[in-house]
């Protein structure tokens, strides 16, 4: 399914190539070699030649005579002496350079590198022809390598490092162009450094699609770090017989230096105007992360030792880049940690720890280098900086919660592709990084990044992969490597590893705090329970022991009055009556106090309440007690509420009884009950035209046993409004009063709406 690669060689069965099998083509068993030497497949132990490919008829006998012979019989004695140890030399994995061997030819000498390795239980011996005047050993190249190592000390950035490697490789090889090519996480590659002559065009900054170097090519490059194509016009030399006579398997040329490549790749090279190429794999921790890719306009062979030196440079480059990556990651981590530690301090300083994040939004944003953030906890969101609208944030939270994944940290630089319908949020939230901070609630800290429109320069249009020919679909190499510009939208700048880590660390800290707070709450509530128990025991004993003496006073006074009343003077009778009255009133106070305390302790049983019905019932009951007075009741429509029916009835009972009491002298008395919607609540009120009160004492109105009138004016213990407040507050509401002396009073209370 791929275009032949810039640097790799998909298979060569192009006439029948179909798009689906392309990615699986076995490029490690091409069955051919490049013609710059010979390849012999030897049977271990006997060193008998099982298969052979011979591009050097000048020095070895033709193929048919090679196969079946033992090595000693086909090589001159001096050469055989040099490769005799091939068996021992290939005991260790990898490729062994056995030395340079010379064959007499045409009255002169021809030199070959003897290189061997093991594959598929066989020994593969290759003889690679040397290049005239090539360095005799790696040591000859040492001055170049040392220069490179010296120069390394002077460079600090990844970019400079890559530039230096490109320059050195080109200097050593003398090729026209050297590129340093780096893969991204999707295996697209970008040319990050280049050194070239005028013979070839610049590919710097171009990007090549992942399909240019398919997976099996990348695996091959991981195993064999160096590849060479000396002449795009070469004629491949077949290995004969094609299959191993014993195993029927083709020869695995993964580690071979002479391995032939796909004709399609050669066509691709010719399209590029390059007739020779070499590439060196850059590995980091065993993984391919890039390539040094060299090209030459004219055919050219890079000598063995030069390639080895380039490989060495490539390995140094990899190590240095890894070190630089580590260093820059460590530096970023340190910077994030400093901010993270500050945020922890902020959180510790607040009653509610999340306020520490919300009040120090700058640090919160700096932690992940984000433009906006949202702190979502217990159903409320606090927005900081540049964020989507709060309804959109709610939508994002719902989407995050819906994913039902176990990942505690979620990051994307392309929200539009993962969250349906989020394209419209791109200006604020193309990038999203979220941490889940509660297992129970849908609570998150979310960071946002806006869309950053980028232009990517591709090496040719990567969408044009296949071309149709009269005989059917056939893959052709791209003919044009003209820069093809693509605009990438709906993406933010990517979240760096250090930024995601910082978010994860903040999450750990928050979860710790949440757990610690939960423990503190548990301890506190345990203490509350015990205090409550004490209080209950106290009021229980008050209920029993305090009432009894009052009862006795009343009882004995009554007995006195009944039995000895005739013996008392009128004044004495009045004294006894006052004693009785006072003791009864004291008893009532105790009863009221107890009922007030019970009100605080009793369990709420909230149900949906029709407040119209509640008031109607209360009014009916009160009306019967009013007697001959005229009361003008003005009852408005009341919003339903959610509450404990007994308690809510008591609220209206107290308020309306008060109104009746304080309008005693009015004719007509006007008592109005109404309701107004508020912000997230409904406000109920009871208004009368009674004696009112002095606003200066409004703060005392709802206190226990607080009275604003003398007892001989208006009876009562002053517990009613205290009970009202306690009940309303236990329902999550609030209560307040307005009034003026002789100007009537309005008592209002608000209950949360939407709960009914």
């Amino acid at each position, binding site marked *: 399914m791929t275009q032949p690669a810039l640097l790799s060689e998909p298979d060569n069965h192009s006439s029948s190539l179909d798009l689906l099998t392309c990615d699986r083509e076995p490029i490690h068993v091409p069955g051919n070699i490049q013609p710059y030497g010979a390849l012999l497949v030897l049977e271990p132990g006997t060193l008998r030649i099982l298969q052979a490919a011979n591009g050097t008829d000048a020095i070895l006998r033709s193929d048919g005579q090679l196969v079946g012979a033992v090595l000693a019989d086909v090589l001159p004695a001096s050469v055989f002496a040099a490769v005799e140890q091939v068996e021992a030399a290939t005991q260790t994995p990898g490729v062994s350079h056995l030395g340079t061997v010379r064959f007499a030819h045409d009255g002169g000498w021809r030199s070959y590198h003897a290189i061997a390795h093991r594959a598929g239980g066989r020994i593969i011996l290759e003889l690679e022809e040397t290049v005239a005047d090539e360095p005799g050993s790696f040591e000859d190249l040492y001055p170049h390598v040392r220069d490179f190592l010296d120069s390394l000390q002077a460079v600090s950035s990844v970019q400079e490092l890559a530039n230096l490697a490109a320059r050195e490789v080109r200097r050593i090889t003398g090729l026209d162009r050297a590129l340093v090519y780096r893969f991204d996480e999707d295996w697209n590659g970008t040319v990050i450094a280049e050194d070239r002559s005028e013979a070839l065009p610049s590919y710097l900054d171009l990007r090549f699609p992942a399909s240019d170097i398919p997976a099996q090519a990348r695996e091959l490059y991981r195993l064999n770090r160096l590849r060479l194509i000396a002449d795009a016009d070469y004629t491949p030399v077949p290995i004969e017989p094609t299959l191993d006579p014993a195993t029927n398997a083709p020869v695995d040329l993964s580690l071979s230096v002479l391995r032939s490549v796909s004709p399609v790749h050669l066509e691709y090279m010719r399209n590029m105007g390059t007739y020779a190429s070499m590439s060196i794999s850059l590995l980091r921790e065993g993984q391919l992360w890039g390539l040094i890719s060299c090209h030459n306009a004219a055919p050219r062979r890079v000598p063995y030792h030069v390639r080895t030196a380039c490989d060495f440079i490539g390995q140094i480059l990899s190590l240095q880049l890894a070190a630089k990556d580590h260093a820059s990651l460590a530096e970023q981590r340190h910077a994030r940690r400093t901010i993270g530690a500050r945020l922890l301090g902020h959180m510790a300083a607040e009653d509610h720890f999340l306020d520490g994040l919300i009040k120090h939004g700058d640090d919160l944003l700096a932690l992940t280098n984000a433009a906006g953030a949202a702190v979502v906890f217990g159903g409320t969101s606090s927005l900081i900086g540049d964020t989507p609208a709060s309804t959109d944030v709610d939508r994002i939270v719902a989407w995050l919660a819906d994913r039902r994944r176990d990942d505690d940290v979620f990051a994307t630089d392309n929200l539009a592709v993962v969250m349906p319908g989020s394209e419209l949020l791109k200006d604020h939230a193309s990038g999203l990084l979220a941490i889940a901070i509660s297992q129970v609630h849908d609570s998150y800290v979310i960071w946002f990044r806006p869309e950053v429109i980028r232009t990517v320069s591709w090496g040719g249009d990567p969408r044009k992969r296949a071309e149709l020919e009269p005989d059917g679909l056939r893959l052709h190499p791209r003919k044009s490597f003209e820069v093809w510009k693509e605009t990438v939208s709906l993406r933010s700048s990517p979240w760096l590893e250090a930024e995601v880590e910082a978010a994860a660390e903040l999450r750990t800290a928050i979860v710790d705090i949440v757990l610690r707070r939960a423990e503190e709450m548990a301890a506190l509530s345990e203490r509350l329970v015990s205090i409550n128990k004490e209080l209950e025991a106290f009021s229980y004993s008050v209920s*029993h022991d305090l009432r*009894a003496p009052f009862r006795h006073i009343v*009882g004995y006074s009554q007995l006195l009055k009944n039995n000895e009343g005739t013996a008392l003077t009128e004044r004495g009778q009045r004294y006894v009556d006052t004693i009785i009255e006072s003791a009864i009133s004291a008893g009532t106070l105790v009863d009221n106090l107890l009922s007030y305390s019970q009100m605080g302790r009793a369990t709420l049983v909230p149900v949906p309440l029709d407040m119209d019905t509640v008031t109607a019932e209360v009014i009916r009951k009160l009306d019967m007690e009013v007697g001959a007075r005229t009361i003008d009741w003005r009852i408005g429509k009341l919003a339903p509420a959610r509450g404990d029916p007994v308690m809510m009835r008591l609220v209206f009972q107290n308020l309306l009884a008060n109104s009746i009491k304080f309008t005693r002298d009015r004719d007509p008395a006007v008592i109005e009950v109404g309701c107004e919607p508020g912000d997230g609540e409904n406000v109920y009120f009871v208004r009368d035209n009674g004696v009112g009160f002095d606003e200066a004492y409004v703060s005392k109105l709802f206190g226990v046993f607080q009275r604003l009138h003398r007892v001989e004016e208006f009876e009562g213990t002053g517990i009613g409004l205290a009970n009202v407040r306690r009940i309303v507050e236990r329902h999550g509401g609030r209560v307040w009063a307005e009034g003026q002396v002789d100007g009537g009073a309005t008592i209002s209370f608000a209950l949360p709406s939407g709960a009914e």
Partner: protein
Amino acid sequence: MADLKPILLVEDSPKDVELTLAALERCQLANTVIVARDGAEALDYLHARGKFTDRKTSEPAVVLLDLKLPKVDGLEVLEQIKKHELLRHTPVVMLTSSREERDLVRSYQLGVNAFVVKPVGFEQFFEAIQDLGMFWAVLNEPPPHSALGSEQAA
């Protein structure tokens, strides 16, 4: 009137005893009132043991039981009465100062026949006692098949 069963008043406070007796007196009930001053004494009377081993009076027509008592408290006395095969049909009226709901709930769970919060006002107290006394001591006959009834007949 010898067959009139007595009223058992269980009350630790002498003042409450006096006031209750005064109230009962005003009801002009002919029943004897036997006073036990704590829960243990009440149980001794009911089981005819201790100082009541040789009591001449019969099982009470009604027990007026204070809730808060020394030694064995009212709820425990109630529980023992209602658990006992012979005693469980004896009507028990809980008299208490307590307005605590849990006492009321607990009493009904244990099978109390009536629960009266002693009002502070004497008149109300008198009325309550009068109603109770009349009802339980005079009108409320034990079920005919009860063991207590047959024992008394014997």
